């Protein structure tokens, strides 16, 4: 049982409020899609939830412990964070990239213990990267790099996965693949919170939706009932049509007036 609770998060930059009193309560097994227009505060909110950005006021607690007071290694083990368009700076092998996810678990001296090998192997298999394990990460395709980063995030066995735009820049096939993995992870018992811009995919795979606009939460609830054309109009200032539900859900957009 893992729970993350954010209370009245306020983030200010100068006179501007990036987040203005945002609260959230989520537990494991959920797949939450965070939607909002550009600049609505999605990335900021995810950073705060991950404990990477300190809000001006408000708290984030994971299992009752305030993230700003948690030792960084403990925090690193309990939640994994993936930024938008992650990249690998050096042509290290996929296997080594994935192994970086175990950094918080490393002993003070000496390198990677042999005991880490099974975990790495498992997560490489899970993300279909076993055949690419020795390939330099900088030569991977967009979809493969996305999976490699996901593997890196999963190798430490975190309970919470926070992802910023997991499908940006991916072709349809790989986009489906990526979002399906996230849903499967939630079904396995993890808590997955992802900022997603593709509303159709969000509607089909995520169970819960949170909509951000102007630094505030406009809606927070079950995907089927909460994602409506009115909400989309409020958040994105564009006309849309929501049809179907679950696996058949589709969101179409129309030209703004």
């Amino acid at each position, binding site marked *: 049982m893992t729970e993350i609770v954010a209370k009245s998060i306020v983030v200010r930059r100068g006179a501007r409020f990036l987040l203005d009193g945002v609260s959230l309560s989520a537990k494991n097994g959920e797949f939450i899609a965070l939607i909002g227009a550009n600049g609505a505060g999605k990335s900021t909110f995810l*950073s705060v939830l*991950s404990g*990477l950005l300190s809000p001006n006021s408000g708290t984030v607690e994971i299992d009752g412990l305030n993230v700003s007071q948690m030792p*960084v*290694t403990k*925090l*690193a083990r309990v*939640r*994994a*964070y*993936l*930024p938008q368009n*992650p*990249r*690998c*700076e*050096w*042509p*290290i*092998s996929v*296997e*080594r*990239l994935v192994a*970086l*996810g175990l*950094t*918080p678990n*490393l002993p003070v001296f000496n*390198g*990677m213990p*042999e005991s880490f*090998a099974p975990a*790495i*192997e498992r997560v490489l298999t899970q993300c279909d990267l076993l055949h690419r394990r*020795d390939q*330099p990460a900088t030569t991977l395709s967009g979809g493969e790099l996305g999976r490699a*980063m996901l593997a*890196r995030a999963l190798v430490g066995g975190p309970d919470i996965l926070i992802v910023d735009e997991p499908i940006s820049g991916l072709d349809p096939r790989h986009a489906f693949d990526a979002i399906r993995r996230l849903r499967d992870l939630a079904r396995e018992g993890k808590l997955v919170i992802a900022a997603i811009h593709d509303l159709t995919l969000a509607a089909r795979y995520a169970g819960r939706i949170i909509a951000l606009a102007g630094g505030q939460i406009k809606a927070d609830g079950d995907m089927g009932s909460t994602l409506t054309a009115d909400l989309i109009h409020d958040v994105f200032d564009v006309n849309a049509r929501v049809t179907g539900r679950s696996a058949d859900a589709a969101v179409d957009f129309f030209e703004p007036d």
Partner: protein
Amino acid sequence: MTVAPRPAHHLFALIAILLVALFAISLLIGAVWLSPVELIHEVLEKQPQLGLLIVTELRLPRTILACLVGAALGLSGAALQGLTRNPLAEPGLLGVTAGAALGAVIAIYFGMATQYVIAAPFMGLIGGLLASALTFALGSGGGAIALVLAGAAVSSLAAACISVALNLAPNPYAAYEIMTWLMGSLADRSWTHVWMVLPFVVAGGAMLVATGRGLDGLSLGEMQAQSLGTDLGRLRISCILGTALAVGAATSVTGAIGFIGLVAPHLVRPFVGHQPSRVLLPAAVVGALLLLAADIATRLLHFGPEMKLGVLTSLIGTPFFFWLVVKIKRTAP
């Protein structure tokens, strides 16, 4: 699980052998040719003769100093490249050595060093710190090229200040010594210099070696590194302070030596799977090797006055620099 690329072991054995060989050559080469046979005879005699004294009091400290300084430069280059994810980063190009030379010049020519032996390496450290602070303040967040440009600006500023300082110095010959400060030299260095520099290089080196894990995390970018528990602020300070300690003190004794810190990490990287933490120590050893080779070359090539170390390191380093720039242009967005 593949822990280390197999070919690397052979390479490191080769590097170690090369280092030992160059060390021995450095002890035997100098203005005066001393045959090993002569030296062995002298060792066996009760009273040390001049030949052996030259080796133990002049060439041995010089060789050790070359290794120390080269290691400091190589290690610092590897750490800075890892920190900034910039293949052009190194203490020379980022202005650290020029700033350190300025600090040392102020300490030496205006009397501080005659009162306190520690003044020169200490001022070298201060100068290096200020220079790197300025370079990072100017150039961060502007991409790979902006940082190097900032470093060039800071180097120019420091070199100009060195010029002014030497002209204002009480000693009338000070101005002629600018070549040594800007191009580096190991000539006639003694054990005094070794002891002066050793604690700083060891302290700085330890700090730099400890950044390994953090640098690995940085391969994934700042946010992911932070999410893995890396304290970015502390990492940056360790790299910069470690560089200022090791390279600042080294420069106070040898003058500004460039390009070792640039080339050494690049030579090592392909053999350690490009992983930043695994580049650090080998880059230190390769740096020592390169500087030792350059110093031996200055003693072999006689074209009139002493050929400065920096000339040789530039001759090797600048073509490498050009090649790097071309490579970056090709891979730039």
